[in-house]
């Protein structure tokens, strides 16, 4: 069972991001016999990152299924099970390995409902631990969420807190569409308040993590934590930062972004995926195409992953994706810029 920590000040139960996901999985399986978890080492091992933990002991090998190392086959198995009445949750051990499963996710899961004229649905969830910062180098550290956000028919989530990791997972399991959840490996041990009951967070709805007047920072997953840390320092310099946590890339909550930019007039988009052709480009273009463009007082700025594979050396690895200091510097620069 998840270790419970009661915070002294508020009396709110704290769980880690991994524990919150596990609790959500357990509650979904308790509530619905159609839900099962499968993937590489999710059973006896408890998951490569310890997310599934004791679920095998609690639910048995028919509902927590250790599988061969066959990502393409597993993704297809999720499609087939979803098509015929089950609610599969597939763990792809490292999100990088989803490259082996692209066919089934992109050609099959995403398109079946449309290709069949709306007669079928594919209610499957794929959990994908992603992101850099663990020294695992180029094939175990990528942030590939933008690839899938480009595919109509899929939903793509990036929770940043334990609360959202559980609430979005439960919403994803309920959702009649294929949903990919990119969990960040560095977040698994982060703690936060998590209600004990089974609750849902709405898919496609961003949240304002910090309210501010001067600059809007849009991000998701661990980038919102780094932005929040930067925002504290910016506050000391008299810069009032608003932080929007996207939570969902597809569908994307443009209204919340637009509302914020209309207020602040400055937009910094921060994401771990490769900057070029990434989600920042889409958000910037959405603003540029909208009537909010007129509210901008400075050019839109993006911070994204370098045009490079993720390197092994720790200093290089840090340099390859936006860090707190990068966000700080970018925000300061943006405060001194003016749109012509």
């Amino acid at each position, binding site marked *: 069972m998840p270790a419970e920590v009661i915070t002294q000040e508020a009396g709110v139960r704290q769980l880690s991001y991994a524990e919150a996901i596990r609790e959500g999985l357990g509650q979904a399986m308790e509530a619905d016999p159609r839900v099962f978890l499968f993937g590489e080492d999710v059973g006896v091992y408890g998951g490569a990152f310890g997310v599934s933990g004791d679920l095998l002991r609690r639910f048995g090998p028919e509902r927590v299924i250790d599988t061969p190392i066959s990502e393409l*086959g597993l993704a297809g198995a999720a499609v087939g099970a979803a098509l015929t009445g*089950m609610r599969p949750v597939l763990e792809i051990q490292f999100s990088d390995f989803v490259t082996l499963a692209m066919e089934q996710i992109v050609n099959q899961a995403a398109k079946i409902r449309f*290709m069949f*004229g709306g007669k079928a649905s594919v209610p499957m969830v794929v959990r994908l631990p992603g992101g850099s910062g663990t020294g695992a180098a180029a094939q175990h550290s990528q942030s590939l969420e933008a690839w899938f956000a480009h595919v109509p028919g899929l939903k793509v989530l990036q929770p940043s807190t334990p609360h959202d990791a559980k609430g979005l997972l439960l919403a994803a399991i309920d959702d009649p569409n294929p949903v990919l959840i990119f969990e960040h490996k560095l977040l698994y041990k982060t703690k936060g308040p998590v209600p004990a009951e089974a609750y849902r967070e709405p898919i496609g709805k961003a949240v304002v993590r910090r309210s501010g007047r001067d600059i809007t920072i849009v991000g998701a997953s661990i980038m919102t934590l780094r932005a929040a840390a930067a925002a504290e320092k910016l506050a000391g310099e008299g810069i009032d930062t608003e932080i929007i946590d996207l939570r969902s890339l597809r569908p994307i909550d443009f209204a919340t972004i637009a509302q914020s930019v209309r207020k602040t007039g400055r937009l910094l988009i921060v994401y771990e995926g490769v900057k070029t052709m990434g989600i920042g480009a889409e958000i910037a273009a959405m603003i540029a195409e909208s009537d909010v463009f007129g509210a901008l007082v400075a050019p839109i700025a993006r911070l994204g992953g370098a045009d490079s594979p993720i390197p092994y050396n720790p200093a290089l690895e840090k340099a390859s994706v936006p860090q707190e200091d990068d966000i700080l510097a970018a925000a300061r620069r943006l405060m001194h810029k003016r749109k012509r």
Partner: protein
Amino acid sequence: MQIPAADSATAAAVREKPAPQRGELSALDDATLRAALRRMHLIRKFEEVAEQSYMRGLVHGTMHLSIGQEASAVGSTLHLRPDDYILSTHRGHGHCIAKGADPARMLAEFFGKETGYCRGRGGSMHIADLTTGNLGANGIVAGGLPIAVGVGMSIKAQKQSRVCMVFFGDGAANEGAFHESLNMAAIWKLPVVFLCENNKYGMSMDIANAMAVANVADRASAYGTRGITVDGNDLPAVAAAAKIAIDQARQGDGPTLLECKTYRLRGHSKSDRNLYRTKDEIEAWRQRDPIRRLQDELVAQQRIEARELAAIEQGAQHEIEEALEFAKSSADPDPAQLTRDVYAG
């Protein structure tokens, strides 16, 4: 490979006293044989009408015809129950009809019409009919195999007595999905029948140049499961082999890799100029036409009168003509509804 005499004098000579029937044929009663023959004719006529419609410019896109492979489609599904599942391929019109789809709605789909099985969104390569357990054709080679694994898991988890039969071609046997799927179905003893229609070519690539074993089914031993190779142009033989595979799947004995050796008499698709095979080869396979073979044997064995065979064919012809009229006269989809079914809910 036994080829029954097509010669009518030979057939007449044996009419007085037919030779003993082989077990595969005697296992099928007359009503089943009539139904099978009707479906084979329906498939043939459907494919011919699809081809003609394309030639006349009535439809766009492409199509993959299964003329010559009707015994494989109909024989393999003959012992499936209505609630059993199939997954099909890009060359899947035959499988759809064999599982009980309405040719009119199939043709309407081919014509891109709102009345088609997929409301004109899928076309020839994506016809699905969930009401007959048909979970869809597939435009990706080996795309259906991993899905069949999940269907098998689902059947098992829900403690149903269903079976899932997944069709694929010889080309699919060299995709990684084939290996992953056979392996998972075997280790978990899933109720799946892997039905390989080996028509000798993956587009233009001769299977003899694409794999180093003689039969696709030889690979079954690598997964610790059963492999059966059968003459895919021999309907009773296909039905008998499929029955073994279906029964074992239903009993919880796991998957079978059943290979039907057959031949597509038409090209891969509309662009095919037959550069990779000879006219003699095509002609030799034409002599093994699965419909004619079955009809000749039924007459020789005095199971069904020649006159009745003609009536079955005419009935199929009539149904396809009506289907064509339905497809032609149906309405096109409304472009305003383009994105309607991208998401559920």
